[in-house]
C-alpha cells in the first residue's frame, strides 16, 4: 500500500480584500467578486517566501507522519516563485528538517502545476521502492502585475505531502497526466510579473486540460464522478473550479471542502495541494477523492485517493487548513501590500 502518510499546510496571516485592490485601480469590485467569486487573498509577510512556507507546511506534515526525517529519500518543492533563480529551495527545506545529506532533491516549476508534479514523482519513487519516504511541497508567493486581473487572486500558501508505505492515511489508487504545449500564461526570464493570454487562458487552456486529465483518470480507473466523495480542481479563482466541476459532472457538495480560493486566492503551486489538505481535514475512512491540478503551459496531473482508518489518528496533530485561514487574520491596505510585495520604488 503506497500513499500519503502525512500532510500539512501553511497559510500566511495577512489578507487583502478585493475591494481594497479594486479601489486603487478604479475597478468595479462587485463585478470581480461575482465574476471571479473572490472575496480576499492571502499576502505573505515580507519575511516569508516559498522556502519559509514550505518549511512550515512540512513541519505540519511531519507532525502527522511522525517519522524520522533522516529517512526521507527525496525532497521536492514545486513553485513558480523560488526565492533564488539559481540555487534550489529544496536544499534549505531538507537542511531544516534534518533530511540531509542522504536525500534526492529537486525544485519543480510548471506554473501552478509544480506542486502536483513533485507529488507525482515522490509517490512514484516510493512506489518503485527507491526511497522509503518521499516529500513533495507545492508553495508559492505569487505576484500578479499591479492592476492586472491576476492581482486579485495571486496569493501565498502551501501544502506538503509525505509519501510512504506504512501508516498510510490515503492510498494513491491511480494517476494520470495530460499535457500539451499551450502558451496561455508565462513569465520570461528577468521579468518581474507574468503575462497571460486573456480569455485564451479559459476554454483552450484550463478547461481543456483539467477536463482532459479528469476524464482520462476516471476512464483509466473505470470510475465516474459518482464514485467520489470529493473532488479538488486547481483554483485560479473561485469560479473556474466550480464551473469545471459542473462540466465534469460533480456536485457542489463534492467540490466544497477543497474549494478555498474565494477566501485564500490562488496559491499557484499550492492551490490544488492545499485543497486536498483541506479535504483530508474532514474526510472519513473510505472516502474517495479526485485531485486535478493545472499548470499553464499547459498540463494537468490527476490522482485518485482513498482515505484509510489512519486519518482519524493524525487529522488533529496539526492545524487544519480552514482553521489556519480563520485564525489571526490581519487585513492590510494596498499601501502596506505594495510595501510588503516590493512594489514601491525606493532610493538605492
Amino acid at each position, binding site marked *: 500500500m503506497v500513499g500519503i502518510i502525512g500532510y500539512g499546510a501553511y497559510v500566511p*496571516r495577512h489578507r487583502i480584500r478585493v475591494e481594497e485592490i479594486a479601489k486603487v485601480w478604479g475597478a468595479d469590485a462587485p463585478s470581480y467578486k461575482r465574476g471571479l467569486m473572490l472575496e480576499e487573498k492571502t499576502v505573505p*509577510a*515580507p*519575511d*516569508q*517566501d516559498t*522556502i*519559509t512556507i514550505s*518549511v*512550515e507546511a512540512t*513541519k505540519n506534515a511531519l507532525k502527522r507522519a511522525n517519522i524520522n526525517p533522516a529517512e526521507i529519500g527525496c525532497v521536492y518543492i514545486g513553485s513558480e516563485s523560488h*526565492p*533564488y533563480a539559481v540555487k534550489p529551495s529544496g536544499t*534549505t527545506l531538507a*537542511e*531544516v528538517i*534534518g533530511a540531509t545529506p542522504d536525500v534526492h532533491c529537486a525544485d519543480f516549476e510548471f506554473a501552478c502545476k509544480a506542486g502536483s508534479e513533485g507529488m507525482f514523482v515522490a509517490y512514484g519513487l516510493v512506489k518503485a521502492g527507491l526511497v522509503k519516504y518521499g516529500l513533495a511541497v507545492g508553495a508559492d508567493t505569487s505576484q500578479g502585475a499591479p492592476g492586472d486581473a491576476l492581482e486579485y487572486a495571486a496569493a501565498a500558501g502551501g501544502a506538503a505531502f509525505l509519501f510512504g508505505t506504512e501508516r498510510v492515511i490515503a492510498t494513491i489508487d491511480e494517476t494520470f497526466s495530460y499535457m500539451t504545449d499551450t502558451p496561455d500564461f508565462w513569465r520570461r526570464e528577468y521579468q518581474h510579473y507574468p503575462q497571460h493570454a486573456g480569455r485564451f487562458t479559459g476554454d483552450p487552456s484550463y478547461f481543456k486540460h483539467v477536463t482532459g486529465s479528469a476524464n482520462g483518470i476516471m476512464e483509466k480507473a473505470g470510475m465516474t464522478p459518482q464514485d467520489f466523495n470529493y473532488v479538488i480542481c486547481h483554483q485560479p479563482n473561485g469560479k473556474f473550479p466550480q464551473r469545471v466541476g459542473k462540466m465534469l459532472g460533480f456536485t457542489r457538495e463534492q467540490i466544497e471542502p477543497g474549494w478555498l480560493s474565494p477566501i485564500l486566492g490562488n496559491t499557484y503551486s499550492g492551490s490544488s495541494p492545499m485543497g486536498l489538505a483541506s479535504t483530508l481535514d474532514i474526510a472519513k475512512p473510505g472516502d474517495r477523492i479526485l485531485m486535478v491540478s493545472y499548470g499553464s503551459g499547459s498540463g494537468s496531473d490527476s490522482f485518485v485517493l482513498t482515505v484509510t482508518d489512519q486519518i482519524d489518528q493524525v487529522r488533529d496533530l496539526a492545524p487544519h487548513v480552514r482553521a489556519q485561514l480563520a485564525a*489571526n487574520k*490581519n487585513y492590510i491596505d494596498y499601501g502596506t501590500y505594495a510595501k510588503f510585495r516590493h512594489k514601491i520604488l*525606493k532610493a538605492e
Partner: protein
Amino acid sequence: MSTSAKLKREMPQRYRMEAGKCTTCGYIAFPPRSICPECQAREFDTVILPDEGTILTHTVIRVAPSQFTDEAPYAIAIIELGEGARVLCQLVDCDLEQIAIGDPVKIEFRRIQAEGKSGVLFYGYKAVPA
C-alpha cells in the same frame, strides 16, 4: 564579502535550533559551547530547542540598523523556550502595541536578512504569537 561560509556554518542553529546540553548539570548552551558556564564541564549532548516558549521581555525597534531599515518597525523579544534555554529573535505577525511579558509564542522559520538584492538569503527562527 563572502558570507556563504558563515551562512553554512550557522545552519544547525539558525535552521534547526541545535543546542548543547551539559551532561553534568543540564545547562542548555545555545549556540553550543566548549565549556559549561555553570559547572565547567566539557561534555554536551546535542539537543533541539523546543519550538514554543514565553516572552521574558520585548521591544519594538523603530530606528533600525542599515540592513533592517525596510522592515522597521519590528518587534524583538527574549524568549524562554523551556529548560532555561533562551533566545533573542524577532517577534512577527503580531500587533506591535499589544505585546506583553509572559505571552506564549511559537517559533516559525522566516527570512532574517538578505545580502542586498543579489546576495545570499539568511533564514532562521522568529517567534509568532502562539
